[in-house]
Each structure stands twice: as structure tokens, then as C-alpha cells.
């Protein structure tokens, strides 16, 4: 039972981070109908930025977060202006390929800047272990849970109560009507990319705190796709719930099934993809997504 609870807690914290990554993805998708495959690369850049600010420059945690967020805002603006704006109105495939190309370029830049090696945040995060009964909660997990909850709440507040949030929700509903009513759609797009970058970078720092940073961190983006599909691609609440579900399930599956499999298992790595296939075959619109009716 302790083992089970331990897996659930670790999974919950991981799941919150997945949910955060997935949120960035859903926001871009809702606003600009663009599928952002490069979300994982934002996460990786975030991990490396965190390393630079926390380890190389010895910033305190809050200052490092702020500095990384600032970098993320600049990155988001650049990405939207240079890569995505020339393609407004193009087909799905073109935009997806562009984000793939973007991801590759970002990976190249990260390799150039940080050497593409494994970097760990040793001795930066406070070391304490919270004990609840028999279950111990690692500091990284705790920080992960707290930061994710704060970020998600802030985003939901922005969506609900600010003008730009209203504009974003309106754009998600009908872009042409929004243009007609005098809202600058390009600003909304730029803002959505900035948010995606910021949440990507934050989750990169959180994941980096747990297991260090490599360019392989970009694969977390692929996992968040599983979250997005499970939750339904146009549902923000769905992304959060599915993120937590997937994080916990992945940990439990790896914890219990891996010892049974030959070659050491490695089920945690392939689990999200199994989820993707199962969801796509049986419930293509996810748990909370809208099924859209198509007309010729």
C-alpha cells in the first residue's frame, strides 16, 4: 500500500507538470488552430535556462523563474512573428511541419548553447523530505505541485477575467467574427504563443529539478500530446485532469508491470503512446473534447 501511495504521489506531481505542458499546447490550438509539436522543445529550452540561471549564475529560485519567464516571453514573440505568422491560413500539415522544423532548430540552438549534455541541478533545491504517514514526498515533487497549481490558477484567471483572455476565448470560437469586431488577431496569436512558451519553460525547470536536463527532455512534449488527446484537444479542464491521470497511471504501470517484462521494461517511456493509440481508436475526441460535425 505504501508503495502504491508513493507511486501515486510521484505520479501526481509528474502529472501536474504534464498538465502544464499540455495546457500550453491546448491554448495555441484553441486560439490559432495550430498544432504545436515544438512544445517539447520549449520544455527542453526551459530546463536549460533553469540550469543557466540556477546553477551557472547562482540566482535564487524565484529570480531564476522570473528570468526564465522573461526569456520565454521573448522566445514566444520571436517564434510567432518569424515562423508562424507567414503561414496564417495555410493547411494543417504545413503548420505542423513548421512547428516540427521549429522544434529541430530549437534543439540545434540548445545543443549549440549548452553542449547537449546531461546537466543536473545538484544542491540548488532545498533538501528536505516531507513525511505523510509512511509516504515520503520529495522536495522536487512538492515544488512541482505548488508551482503547477499556481501557474494553472493564474492562467485560468487570465482567461476568465482579463480583456486579452476574453479576446482569446473569442478567437477560439470564431476568428473571423473577432477580426470584424476590431480585435487584432495577430496580437492574440502572439499572446497565445507567449503563454505556451512560458508554461513550457516553467515545466522544463520543474522537470529539470526532478531528473536533470538533456535534449531528450523534448520528448516530454510527445507525452503531453498523449495528455492532450486523452483530455480532448480543445478542453483546458480536460488537459489538467488527463495530465494528472496519465502521470499517476504511468508511474503505477512502470512500478508494477516493469518487473514482469523482459529487457527491464521501460514501460514508462512507451506508456503514453499506448494511451494515444487506445484513445484514438476508441474515443478520438478524448474524454472532454467536442465532437465536431463536418460538412462538405
Amino acid at each position, binding site marked *: 500500500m505504501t508503495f502504491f501511495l508513493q507511486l501515486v504521489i510521484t505520479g501526481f506531481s509528474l502529472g501536474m507538470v504534464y498538465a502544464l505542458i499540455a495546457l500550453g499546447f491546448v491554448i495555441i490550438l484553441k486560439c490559432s488552430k495550430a498544432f504545436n509539436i515544438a512544445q517539447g522543445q520549449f520544455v527542453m529550452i526551459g530546463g536549460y535556462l533553469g540550469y543557466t540561471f540556477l546553477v551557472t549564475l547562482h540566482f535564487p529560485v524565484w529570480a531564476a523563474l522570473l528570468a526564465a519567464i522573461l526569456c520565454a516571453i521573448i522566445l514566444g514573440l520571436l517564434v510567432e512573428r518569424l515562423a508562424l505568422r507567414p503561414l496564417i491560413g495555410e493547411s494543417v500539415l504545413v503548420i505542423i511541419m513548421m512547428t516540427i522544423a521549429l522544434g*529541430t*532548430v530549437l534543439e540545434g540552438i540548445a545543443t549549440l548553447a549548452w553542449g547537449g549534455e546531461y546537466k543536473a541541478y545538484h544542491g540548488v533545491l532545498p533538501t528536505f523530505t516531507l513525511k505523510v504517514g509512511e509516504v515520503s514526498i520529495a522536495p522536487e515533487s512538492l515544488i512541482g505541485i505548488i508551482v503547477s497549481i499556481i501557474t494553472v490558477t493564474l492562467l485560468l484567471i487570465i482567461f476568465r477575467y482579463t480583456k486579452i483572455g476574453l479576446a482569446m476565448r473569442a478567437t477560439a470560437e470564431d476568428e473571423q467574427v473577432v477580426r470584424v469586431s476590431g480585435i487584432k488577431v495577430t496580437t492574440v496569436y502572439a499572446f497565445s504563443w507567449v503563454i505556451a512558451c512560458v508554461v513550457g519553460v516553467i515545466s522544463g525547470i520543474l522537470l529539470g529539478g526532478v531528473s536533470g536536463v538533456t535534449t531528450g527532455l523534448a520528448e516530454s512534449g510527445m507525452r503531453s500530446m498523449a495528455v492532450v488527446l486523452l483530455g480532448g484537444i480543445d478542453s483546458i479542464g480536460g488537459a489538467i485532469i488527463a495530465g494528472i491521470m496519465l502521470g499517476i497511471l504511468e508511474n503505477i504501470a512502470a512500478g508494477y508491470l516493469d518487473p514482469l517484462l523482459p529487457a527491464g521494461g521501460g514501460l514508462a517511456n512507451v506508456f503514453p503512446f499506448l494511451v*494515444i493509440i487506445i484513445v484514438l481508436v476508441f474515443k478520438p475526441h478524448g474524454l472532454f473534447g467536442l465532437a465536431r460535425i463536418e460538412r462538405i
Partner: protein
Amino acid sequence: MSLPSGVFQQSYGQDMAIFRTKTQWLLLLAFLVLLFLCPLFASDRILTILTIMGISVISVLGLNILTGYCGQISLGQAGFMAAGGYISAVLTAKLGLSFWVALPTAGLGAGIIGIIFGLPSLKIKGFYLIMATVAAHFIIIWVILQFSGITGGANGLSAPRPAIGDFVFRSKGSYFYLTMVITCLAIYCAKNIVRTRVGRAFVAIRDNDLAAEVMGINLWVYKLTAFFLGCVFAGISGSLLVHYYSFASTDHFPFINSVWYLGMLIAGGMGSIAGSIFGVIALKLLDELVTFVGPFLSAVIAPQAAASIGLIMRGLVIALFLIFEPRGLAHRWELIKSYYRHWPFSH
């Protein structure tokens, strides 16, 4: 339209012919002769590049049928290649079968795996399908690593070079001939598949699958056919690759390769057989450029510059093609041809 002026068709056969003038036949023959004389004067390095290009062309042709013609975007081509490659390696190394049995079996096996992972395409499209094919790649690689008793797992599996009787395709030159013959056959098949009823159904599905269904095209059959055909090409190309390296390893089929195959398709031009060839040549030459300038950059900037410049350049090339030449090199080639034919009168 796409012919020099003064050429007229008098029968349906003439109208449908791929090569319609004597000049075209002459150019084709000259090209083939030049290609097959390559081993006589080209160095081993160039032969290696050409062989890998040939193998990639087969794979990209498959992707072109699936993505360029049928509109089912796939990011799992490297995974399907791995499936074909491993089937072929297991058949030859473990069961001692001949390469000539293993090659078609690899194609068929990869095709059937393709059908399995193509099943979601009946319900989903666009981004969803991309995710399904990405998942296919990772699941195939995972299965290969798990069943290490058969596939050798992470240690890989040695695969013998093909042989006819006592003659083994051991030298670079002989393997070059083998690859080029199969590549030419693949190009011929692909070109003709897309001109048939099946190919036209694919195009209809790509342009609007709902409308295609209303017209009486069975989506279930044709989408899965597209997956099957695309993956057969992938399997054959994977088999050739594995036997070329004499070794099957999941490292030969990284996920990033699937992305490059799609990149080659876009650079070349989707929905054009010639485009697949152009795209492969263009991006492979870019790779060679990167390996050529890489060491200099590493020496001047930083040791990791060679690896990163490769990524950045390939990403940039795809991005620039998408922004400035979305119809690919094949379209540019048509423009050049028509310019040359109409010169000096532009209309």
C-alpha cells in the same frame, strides 16, 4: 501543356505515356547509363552516398503515396522501416532464408503492420493521425527492444549481405547496383500506382475525404490500401538498409528520420513522384554539406557545433521551403522546363 510545342497525341496510349518524345527516352537512357556506370569512376564515398539516397528514395516514395497522394500524414515511416528491416534480418540471420525471400516478406510484413496502425485513420485525420503514427514508431521500436530473444534487443542483430549463388553483394559497387535496380523498380511501380484507379481514389480522399466517400470511394479500403502500400515501400527500404549495414539496430531508425522523410517530401513537392527524388537528393546533399563544414565549425566555434548546425540547417531548410516554396522543388522544376520550352517567347 507539359510538352514541347508541336507534339500531338493521336491515341489514348500516347496521351497516357510517361515518356512521350524521343528526347525524353534518350535522356532517360543517358541518365540510366550514367547511373549504372557510376561504380566505374566514382569513389567509395560517393557510392555510399548514392546507395543511401536510393534507399531513402524508396522510403520517401512510400511516404509520398501515403501522405502526398492520399493525404494521410505519417510521422512513423522510420518505425515501419525498422519493422521491415528487422523482419528481413530475423528471416535471414535466424532462419537462414535467402535475402530474395526476406526482402518481399519484409515489405509485406511492414505493410501489414502499417495496416494495423492505419486503422485509427478511419476515424481520425490531420493532427490525430500524426500522433497515431508517432505512437506507432515508438511502439514498434519498444517491441523490437523487448523481444530481445528474437531481435537481439539493444545489441542488434547481424544480417548477412545478399547473395546470388556464390556471388555475394559484398563490395560497395555491387550493393550500389542492387539498390539502384530496386529503386528504379520502386519508382516505376510508384509512378504507375498513382496513375491507376487506386491512385485517383487516393487523390480524391486527400482533397476531401467526405466528398470522396459520397462519390462512392470506399474509405475503409482505400485508406488502408494507402497505409499498406506506403509501408511496403518502407519495409523494403528498411530491409535494404539493414543488409547494407550488415547489422540491424534500432539506432538506424531514429524517430528524427521520420521527420526528415517528411521534410524531403515537402522540399521535393508532395504528390509528385519526381519530387520525392528531388527532395531526397536535396536534403542528402545538405547533409553532406553539413558533414563537410561541420569539422571546421567545431574547430572554430565549439565542439558541439557540428551536430547543432546540422539540426539548425535542416530545420531552417524545411521552414524556408514551407514559407517560400510550399509546392517544392518539383514545381520549380516544372517552371524551369516550361521556361526553357517557351524561350524566347514567354507565352
